[in-house]
């Protein structure tokens, strides 16, 4: 264990943990965003079940023969939670260290390459944790949904939730902050893992921009389309499915 302790004890080791857990979380975000787009697939012509409701059920059914219903889902959730905890813990530890290492700033501060994204990683990250907690209580458990949440009726739940301008607006803001976090984080991950050598920097920076923008557009499409009236109200039978 001293090997792990020595590695994590170093600033680079903590950053490697941040980068690897960040990679898992970015991967999850991309998958989540792609899955969300099922909202636009409408309902099955014969059964009338919304495609996204069907997709939600599919996620619960993966590996159910072996692991039981939602067993696989819970394993994934456990992995994601572990990643969030490690990502946040290493981030907070490093931020405390960094603050101690720079006790005083300059009278006139003039950054040349540090940007809004790189300078808000800690606060942006802490905000995202709060968002994730809200989001789970809102659309997974329905605890703070308050608009007739029915488990499994994904389309109807989304439709009801995003009628509220405050809720839709909060999701948009959160996704903007997620994009900002990932614009710096995705590139940073490659730099930390030393993958960016020798001269891929431009490509990786561009890739980070694409990932951040794609996630913002993909995630925001759902609340925007629902609030903007592009998606039809749910048919009654789908809510009881």
């Amino acid at each position: 264990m001293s090997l792990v302790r020595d590695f994590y004890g170093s600033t680079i080791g903590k950053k490697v943990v941040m980068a690897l857990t960040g990679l898992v979380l970015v991967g999850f975000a991309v998958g989540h965003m792609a899955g969300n787009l099922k909202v636009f697939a409408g309902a099955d012509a014969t059964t009338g079940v919304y495609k996204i409701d069907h997709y939600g059920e599919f996620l619960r059914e993966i590996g159910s023969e072996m692991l039981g219903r939602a067993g696989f889902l819970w394993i994934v959730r456990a992995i994601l939670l572990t990643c969030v905890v490690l990502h946040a813990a290493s981030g907070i530890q490093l931020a405390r260290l960094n603050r101690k290492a720079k006790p005083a700033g300059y009278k006139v501060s003039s950054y040349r390459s540090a940007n809004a994204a790189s300078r808000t990683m800690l606060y942006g990250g802490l905000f995202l944790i709060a968002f994730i907690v809200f989001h789970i209580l809102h659309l997974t458990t329905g605890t703070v949904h308050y608009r007739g949440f029915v488990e499994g009726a994904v389309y109807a739940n989304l439709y009801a939730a995003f009628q509220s301008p405050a809720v839709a607006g909060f999701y948009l803001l959160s996704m903007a902050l997620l994009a900002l976090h990932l614009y710096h984080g995705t590139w940073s991950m490659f730099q930390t893992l030393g993958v960016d050598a020798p001269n891929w920097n431009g490509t990786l920076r561009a890739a980070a921009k694409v990932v951040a923008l794609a996630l913002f557009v993909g995630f925001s499409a759902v609340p925007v389309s629902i609030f903007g009236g592009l998606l039809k109200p749910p048919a009654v039978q789908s809510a009881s499915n």
Partner: protein
Amino acid sequence: MNLTLFVWRQEAASSAGSFVEYALDGVSEDSSFLEMLDMLNEKLVESGHQPVAFEHDCREGICGSCSMSINGRPHGPKRLTTACQLHMRMFKDGDVIYVEPFRAGAFPVVKDLVTNRSAFDRIQQAGGFVSVQTGAAPEANATPIEKDHADEAFDAAACIGCGACVAACPNGSAMLFTAAKVSHLALLPQGQPERSARVAKMVEQMDSEMFGGCTNHGECQEACPKGISIKYIAQMNRDFISAAVRKARSLRGAMRAQ
């Protein structure tokens, strides 16, 4: 040109410092920033005041002694230039200039603009060398080195250890300095035998000196008077990771033998 200077004055490491305002007239735009400070100091001495303490040696931009932040930027506004090579023509008549020591927790102020940067020496001493038997110099062409590697190693070796990277970093991190020293030897055949141990020891020393961690702001490479790229940080990260993997593998080998 006439200038208004706000210079950080601090009696000792333990005392609190503050900015003191000085009006300086008749500064030649052809003088260097340090010559301008010399001029200020002459006036201070003539009027019976303590001169501003600042570090300087070669005044040719290669020794890394001069260390001050000018308007919040280590070595001042001009890229790829040390404070001694910065000329007053970079400023305008009537400018207000703030002159501060390099700011970082690991570089405590000794006096005025002078900081203690010996943490860099200790990082270097931890592994920034090649252990060889001394003797007659080997024949120069005995060890062929690929041109690209030689160039990359030379770019890293251009580091003068001035500390501008640490001073510019919002985290007070010494990653660029350490990366330059680690990479310059990691890129050459002479550096290979101690490559893993070197990166592990130098990073350990760096962390123990209470420098911050790298968050990839990239401010260090902007401030570096020698234009050292943060690609060397990526290179050092990779070496650090592979050194840890190698160490883990060697422990596994020891278990098998029992």
